[in-house]
């Protein structure tokens, strides 16, 4: 269960203030597939950054399961983040580790035994269709392949939630649908998915919950939403 309660995020500069998120409130239940839509700068990424504790809200309260996110100290953040798998538009793989090690890293840092790693990492790589690229480094992989490694890394720990911030933003249509198909599959296994995107086709095909944002405000929150921006 994820709860945003009257959350605002205001960036303040000497010269001007920028409201990235304005009094947003919503709840996301376990196993939901929720899309965050909106133009660039509407506040999608801000919501994700706030959820994983990368940024602190200026106002309001964010709850994730038993965690009061904005009250966590730097030291406690890793424990929250191990419950959330994150997928970024720019992939953010560790460039000096190969595909296998990138996925294994998520298990290793959580202190899981070597036997788990040897069992689950190949499984995850197979699920995303990269079994034969395990020893390739990110620079040797295409965009779609990188994103699939990132998905394998995000799901390997069996997180409660997978957050995807424009995961298809850098990909061609074929790879885009491959990524969405993987996310749907993971969702079917019981993981909550939060997908931030401005891809109209994806939203209209999914037919699941859509939270629409504009200028930092939530303008629509529909159970079976469409991509409508005015």
């Amino acid at each position: 269960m994820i709860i945003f309660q009257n959350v605002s995020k205001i960036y303040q500069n000497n010269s001007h203030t920028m409201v990235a998120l304005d009094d947003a409130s919503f709840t996301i239940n376990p196993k939901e597939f929720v899309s965050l839509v909106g133009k660039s700068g509407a506040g999608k990424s801000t919501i994700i950054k706030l959820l994983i504790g990368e940024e602190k809200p200026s106002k309001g309260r964010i709850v994730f399961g038993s965690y009061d996110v904005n009250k966590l100290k730097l030291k406690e953040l890793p424990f929250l983040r191990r419950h959330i798998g994150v997928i970024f538009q720019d992939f953010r793989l560790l460039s000096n580790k190969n595909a296998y090690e990138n996925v294994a890293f998520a298990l290793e840092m959580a202190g899981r035994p070597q036997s788990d790693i040897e069992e689950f990492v190949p499984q995850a790589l197979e699920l995303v269709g990269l079994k034969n690229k395990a020893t390739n480094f990110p620079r040797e992989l295409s965009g779609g392949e990188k994103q699939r490694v990132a998905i394998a890394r995000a799901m390997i720990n069996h997180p409660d939630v997978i957050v995807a911030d424009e995961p298809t933003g850098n990909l061609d249509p074929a790879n885009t649908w491959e990524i969405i198909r993987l996310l749907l599959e993971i969702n079917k296994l019981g993981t909550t998915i939060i997908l931030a995107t401005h891809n109209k086709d994806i939203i209209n095909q999914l037919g699941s919950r859509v939270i629409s944002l504009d200028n930092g405000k939530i303008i629509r929150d529909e159970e079976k939403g469409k991509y409508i921006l005015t």
Partner: protein
Amino acid sequence: MFTALSRIIRYGLLGFWRNGWLSTATISIILIALFVFESLIIFQILTQTALDAIQNKIDISVYFKSDAPEDEILKIKQVLSGLEEVKSVEYVSKDQALEAFQSRHKDDEAITESLKELEENPLLASLDIKAQDPKKYAAIAEYLDKSSFKDRFQKVSYTQNAVVIERLSKVIDTAEKGGVTLIVVLALLAVLVTFNTIRLAIYSSREEIGIMRLVGASNTFIRGPYLVEGIIYGAIGAFLSVLFALPIIYITSPYIKIFIPEMNLWSYFLNRIFFIFLYQLLFGVTLGIISSAIAVRKYLKI
């Protein structure tokens, strides 16, 4: 705990190996820093030996009138030895003085001949006094001048050499102080250069550190491999600095012997090579660990 540690060490080694060029560059800088540190140790040893040698050459000699009885001279020697400022007093009898004189001039026939002509030993008995500190010679000379046995003295060498002794003692003093300042400044430079090199090496990984934080790695787990890399940098740097010093010292050792005959640098270095390596290791590894820890800290705040 053990798995975490072994993973940290493995990642440290992997990072070191995969960033080959960066590691090589960092090690060369550390090597230079450690080399400076090593040279400073050797420089300090050399100047100390040289200064000690010079100090040992300075003394005051008191020459006694030829009618002064030996037992009285020995009594005076005892009194002088008891003084705080005095390090040692050596008695040179008339016969010893003659012997020394003869051996010093054995190739000079004119002197040997004229000595034979003389029936009596023309040389005087003396006490050679060495001070604890070259600055104390003036005080000793003054003491001698005011002492009750002054009329037994023929002459005191200090009065003749006062200017030279004072100048030498000033030179020694300045050399010691200057040496310490030089060492502090150069050591500080070496530390700063190493620190900045490691900081730059880690700066290139700042994105990786951010990614690790975002996927939920604890700070210990992120920092660990960088500390391991720091340790490797320091250890390899220490090893190489000692290794590269060997031929340099072997070649320069004979030249140093010309200036400081008391010093055989090559054998001195070989005898203490283990301790020198240990010093270098301690210095290098500490520097590596501290620099890495400070450099990583900045990027862990996500």
